[in-house]
């Protein structure tokens, strides 16, 4: 199976390739990609150099242009596709119908992957994207069980890529406006979720309080692991219950499911975390490359060793196990 690793910076791209990633995905430093964070991402020269570095070592580079272009500002997104092609990218990762149509028409030679932000969750809609826009690979949303993934692969001709490690969206990706409801900035429009610019921390009685756009997201007592101030992983009250109504602050680790995912016909395993450091990328890439090689050789999966890198310092297999729902 192919290991697809994140790179938020050229240094992380190099670290990923050196650590064994067969493929790296990254984005331009603007609203065209869904990790539009301060100090992150690639300018045009860095992208070309990154692609050259990867290709020189037999690795591929995918460019994520996976936000939804603003009405009246489509040229920014169209330029990103053209520049990705010029830089030598092996594929672009797109979510928007209009952008897919544009890429298919104007850049027919550039391979198109369907972003997880399109949340294509069944064979019919995947076949729709394949037939209408010539999509060659689909990144599956994090709402499916392993059995459902296997069933999907039996009914489609395109490749599938699934997340195996990192942050976990509990909502169908690309169809969530929780962040913009609280902050005005959304994954779909701005490439950010629960943006740092709208986060405020305060030491209060009861612990460290994180607020997003003025809304209290959680309060962590001293010594407890701190989660990202992500809205869907906040602690809330509903009726007589207080807790993580939507999702616990944990992250995905599907190492043990790699053999099952291989049997389910998955082509590529994806690591989340373009916002993370090169230290994270290198460590996770090394670990998953070893797991993939173990799988290919029929050896058991290595025991989880990445807990300290995980949010909440705990991991879940998420929707891959049906009990999650």
């Amino acid at each position, binding site marked *: 199976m192919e290991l697809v690793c994140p790179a938020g910076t050229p240094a992380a791209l190099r670290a990923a390739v050196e650590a064994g990633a067969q493929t790296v995905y990254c984005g331009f430093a603007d609203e065209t990609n869904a990790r539009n964070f301060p100090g992150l991402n690639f300018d045009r020269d860095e992208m070309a150099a990154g692609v050259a570095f990867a290709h020189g070592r037999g690795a591929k580079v995918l460019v994520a242009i996976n936000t*939804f*272009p*603003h*009405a*009246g*500002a*489509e040229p920014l997104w169209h330029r990103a596709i053209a520049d990705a092609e010029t830089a030598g990218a092996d594929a672009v990762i797109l*979510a*928007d*119908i*209009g952008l897919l*149509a*544009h890429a298919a028409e104007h850049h027919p030679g550039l391979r198109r992957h369907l972003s997880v932000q399109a*949340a*294509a*969750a*069944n*064979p*019919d*809609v995947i*076949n*729709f*994207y394949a037939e209408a826009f010539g999509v060659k690979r689909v990144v599956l949303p994090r*709402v499916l069980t392993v059995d*459902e993934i296997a*069933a999907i692969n039996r009914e489609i001709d395109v490749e599938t890529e699934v997340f195996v490690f990192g942050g976990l969206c509990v*909502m*169908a990706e*690309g*169809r*969530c*406006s*929780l962040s*913009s*409801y*609280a*902050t*005005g900035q*959304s994954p*779909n*429009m701005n490439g950010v979720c629960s943006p740092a610019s709208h986060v405020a921390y305060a030491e209060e009685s009861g612990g460290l309080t994180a607020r997003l*756009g*003025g*809304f*209290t997201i*959680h*309060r962590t007592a001293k010594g407890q692991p701190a989660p990202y101030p992500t809205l869907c992983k906040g*602690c*809330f*009250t*509903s*009726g007589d*219950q*207080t807790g993580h*109504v*939507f999702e616990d602050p944990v992250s995905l680790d599907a190492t043990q499911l790699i053999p099952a995912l291989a049997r389910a016909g998955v082509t590529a395993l994806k690591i989340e975390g373009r916002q993370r450091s090169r230290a994270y990328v290198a460590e996770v890439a090394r670990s998953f490359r070893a797991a993939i090689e173990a799988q290919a050789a029929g050896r058991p999966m290595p025991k989880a060793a990445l807990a300290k890198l995980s949010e909440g310092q705990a991991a879940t297999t998420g*929707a891959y196990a049906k*009990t*999650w*729902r």
Partner: protein
Amino acid sequence: MDLTVGPNLFFWEAATVRAFYEGLTTAPVARVVLGEVVCSKRLPFWQNEIAQAADTLLSAGKAVAITSLALVTLKRERKATAALAEIGLPIEVNDLTALQSLPKGQPFWVGPLINVYNEGTLRWLAARGAVRVCLPPELPLDSIAVLARLGRDLGVSVEVWGHGRLPLAISGRCYHARLHDHAKDSCQFVCGLDPDGRDVETLDGQKFLAVNGVQTLSQSTASMAFQIEALREAGVTSLRMSPQSADFAQICVAYAARIAGTLTAADLAASLIAKVPGGRLSDGFVRGPSGAHWSGTATIGNHHGL
């Protein structure tokens, strides 16, 4: 500008559904979207009402469409989605899965849960047969104006979210079941206990969200009371009215009066605050710093942090 009633997002008993649509026959609404958009498990309990409601509303002179589910994953959901084309009503697509089984050239509507953010997407959908599009509630006024103008050129009617708790997210996980400590597969239909969704507050008691099965809504009810002129100017042809359990037909009458100029924005807002679940309004997605923001001043209850 007219009114379109969206599909009911909540799980109501069949008798409640029947009374609700009967009450709309005399309401000043031009069209109604029927069907289940949130959860396929609810459908068997009330699907027999759909044909009856369609007949009643069509005889009352309303246009009627049927919605697709918002998130299609299971085999029976795919079958149900493919079968929509056989019903004989226009389909409102709320998941692109529905397009795969729709004969090319057959006109369809596009619901607010499809990501129509830009001209390229609107143009592609129009070429595929879209004749009405309700834009995603997240869109700001600038984007609405660009898309409404293009819609006019393409012969596509552009509608925006006019009234109702905002559909902010959809998930594979059921939050209602989770709050009741049930698995989704044995949910016991607990979402039926909350006819307008179940409120979720922050740890500091701020009114924030509402869960509705697998869907997450805003706690506030979005209202375009103060935005009618701006939206008309932008070229919007219809306001989407999303059903709520209390006084819905009356609310439609009030919006119609506001559009006709016989009711002021402030008077409409004041009347709404007493009627909407939770008593709070918002219109920040269209013109404000965040979706939760409200242009008006008339409020009851607390407005922590806003």
